């Protein structure tokens, strides 16, 4: 059975590249452990960002009107939560794919896509949070952070976690490229 598996692998064009001199950078144990560690950190950061954003909730009373702030009132924050949730699910699944399997090229391409989505979600949420904090007095948009402190602080925390997750994914991408090619 193992013999059949070996012959199947030998016919695969990817694995026959191990005979060429390009394969003098195999995935040694330290590199594999480092990659695993980075993916674990990324999963933790994205999970933290999702959870902190979802549990952000505050209400304030202004002139007998209740002013309630939830993450689902803004479409940007909904996009942020969905993007981070997808990224954390993806990290969890990829943790179980070993670095020698046939899927490692697909994993690298999907890594690029996920990094793109993560960075765009963090950037969009930061733009809207900037309007919420400083306001845009010339367009008539008042800042709301003065009314709902707890909501603002939690959103800031979620944004920091999301930013760290995007950076970790970028580092992971460059490191994977370094171990595979350079």
């Amino acid at each position, binding site marked *: 059975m193992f013999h059949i598996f070996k012959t199947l692998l030998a016919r695969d064009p990817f694995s026959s590249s191990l005979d060429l001199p390009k394969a003098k950078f195999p995935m040694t144990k330290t590199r594999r452990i480092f990659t695993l560690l980075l993916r674990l950190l990324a999963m933790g950061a994205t999970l933290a960002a999702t959870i902190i954003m979802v549990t952000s909730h505050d209400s304030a009373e202004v002139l007998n009107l209740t002013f309630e702030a939830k993450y689902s009132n*803004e479409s940007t924050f909904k996009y942020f939560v969905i993007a981070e949730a997808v990224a954390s699910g993806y990290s969890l699944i990829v943790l179980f794919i070993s670095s020698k399997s046939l899927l490692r090229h697909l994993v690298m*391409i999907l890594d*690029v896509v996920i990094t793109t989505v993560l960075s765009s*979600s963090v*950037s969009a949420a*930061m*733009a809207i949070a900037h309007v919420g904090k400083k306001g845009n007095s010339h*367009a008539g*948009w008042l800042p709301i952070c003065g009314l709902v402190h707890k909501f603002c602080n939690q959103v800031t925390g979620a944004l920091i976690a999301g930013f760290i997750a995007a950076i970790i994914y970028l580092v992971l991408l*460059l490191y994977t490229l370094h171990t595979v090619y350079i």
Partner: protein
Amino acid sequence: MALETERKTEAIFNSTPAQKQKDRILLLLRLVAFLATASATIVMALNKQTITLVVATIGNNPIKASLTAKFQHTPAFVLVLYSLLIPSLLHIYNDCACTFFVVANAQASFHNLLILVLEIVGHKIDFKGLRLAIIAILDMLIVVLAAAGDGAAVFMAELGKNGNSHARWNKICDKFQTFCDHGSGALIASFIGLILLLIINIISIAKLFKPKSYNTI
């Protein structure tokens, strides 16, 4: 020894006509991406609309105020200077997101142009076998940057178009129709550029993986 095999295999890699056609298709995609990001930058940078509103009437003279929507942030002292004049000019700026959008797209179009020129003109320049890797890494960074710029701008545009009733933020697109139309055009062009850049990046990475003595893509 490894360098010689690299150069020889790169020579084999580049010489089949099918491979040359695929390289040309890649160049064409990059050209279209460059045009898309450059047009997005230019349209958004020159995006400006001025409307006049009647603010008050004194006797028989209506006092008009001009509102200008521009993409960039105006510093405060210029605002004070302008507001002393009658009609007073109030600048509405769509804050840092639009500036970031213009900057990110400018960088993306500059990168596209650079790589285009490199591919067309600089085939003899020796990168010690690292040519594909450098292009792939730079492409990755630019894709992430352009995606960030696009994301921020599209959500700011959505806020300007629909407003946000929960935070009491009113929409501004009903007053500034042309500004919003031009902005949406720039956004669409930028998204086309981003998708093309992503496809180019994925093809470049796929080229890295395939062993070079097999001329397949």
